[in-house]
């Protein structure tokens, strides 16, 4: 136990820096995944059939490929085609894209739960499709989708550890480097696990608060 505390004292500054990167990565990838998720849902409901095909195609392909392979593709293969992304940007794009298909699913469920009468109210007030989506369907659908988006967010937080494979100095990678150089595997990985747990608990709490705030009779 004493050893662990000594290790914790020595390693925590580095690991906390890694945790900061993990959280940045989570927030950026989450934003991108939600934005893209909205795009897939809107395209999936378009009248123009090719939009629907693209949406369905992206969802099928992205869902069928492991996230780590997608990250390798973006970080190692795209440079061959002239697109050289820094690691952090590659991580955000890779995780954001991979998670966008789950967000699309969350949003689709939420939008399906929006009361049809409210859509009619918007139509009767003269809203065009765009205004209807921006003012009624998306804000209400998002509220209905919050619990599942929250779950997805916690999964995303943990999956940012995959970004350690493309040299992003987030929590898992900082820990690996410490473990390799000190051989204190037990303390290092225990600390990493505790830090992920510590980060996900407030996230879960935040989701519960958002759910309460967004709850409507």
């Amino acid at each position, binding site marked *: 136990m004493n050893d662990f505390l000594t290790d914790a004292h020595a390693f925590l500054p580095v690991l906390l820096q890694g945790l900061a990167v993990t959280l940045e990565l989570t927030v950026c990838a989450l934003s991108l995944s939600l934005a893209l998720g909205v795009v897939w849902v809107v395209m999936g409901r378009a009248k123009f059939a090719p939009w629907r095909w693209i949406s369905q195609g992206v969802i099928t392909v992205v869902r069928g490929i492991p996230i780590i392979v997608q990250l390798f593709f973006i970080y190692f293969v795209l440079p061959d085609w002239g697109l050289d992304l820094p690691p952090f940007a590659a991580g955000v794009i890779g995780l954001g894209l991979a998670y966008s298909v789950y967000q699309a699913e969350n949003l689709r469920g939420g939008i399906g739960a929006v*009361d049809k*009468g*409210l859509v*009619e*109210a*918007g*139509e*009767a*007030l*003269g*809203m*065009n499709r765009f*205004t209807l989506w921006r*003012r*009624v369907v998306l*804000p*209400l659908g998002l*509220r209905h989708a919050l619990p599942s988006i929250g779950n997805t967010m916690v999964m995303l937080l943990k999956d940012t550890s995959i970004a350690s494979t493309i040299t992003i100095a987030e929590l898992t990678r900082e820990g690996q480097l410490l473990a390799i150089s000190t051989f204190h595997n037990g303390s290092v990985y225990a600390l990493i696990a505790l830090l992920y747990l510590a980060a996900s608990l407030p996230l879960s709490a935040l989701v519960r608060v958002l759910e309460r705030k*967004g709850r*409507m*009779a």
Partner: protein
Amino acid sequence: MITLTGVTKRFGARQVLNGVDLTVARGEVLCLIGGSGSGKSTILRCINGLERHDQGTIHVDGTRVDDAGLPAIRRRVAMVFQRFNLFPHRTVLENVIEAPVYVHGEPVAQARARAMDLLARVDMADHADSLPSALSGGQQQRVGIARALALRPEAILFDEPTSALDPERVGEVLRVMRELAQEGMTMLIVTHEIDFARGVADKVAFVDQGVIAEQGAAAEVLSHPREARTAQFLARVLHRD
């Protein structure tokens, strides 16, 4: 001002409207009565395009109800719903300014001032910052009427505005509607409130099996119906309680 000619509507195998001819003059209050499933709500919903009618024509002041005409018609004809359909994520005031600001581009300050006047008129100014979920059904419906009035409509369609209310809340909504009628608003009302129709409506039309079975002056139709099925319906509704 509103004219329907030979309007038909089919939902799958069910023929809901079977050739509806109906005219609502400017400033007139017309109540549509009839049993459930008779098609009276569908008539309203075809006028502002919530349902697309199959055959026949609907005109609002010379503008035809079709894809091209709908935006103009929805600007001039507002609707009040049975289940209020207030936006639950917006306050009372936000519900009322929603269309003026986000559909018609009215400046927010001006829309708010106008909305407060409208809320005062339906006696809901004290609840401007409440969410709809905090209100009773009667209060929500009065906000629904204020939201409709915020469009500065030339006519308002009421789809069973008091059917979802607790009995003791019906009066407050009917009072607001009566005031609107007295101010000369053109109103087309689907209702089961026969006493209200008798007291407020200029005309009453009885809808049965997708057609207007009988129409005329309110007192005439309600007190001396010509058609046997109108008389039967009235007897059922009036002796309900």
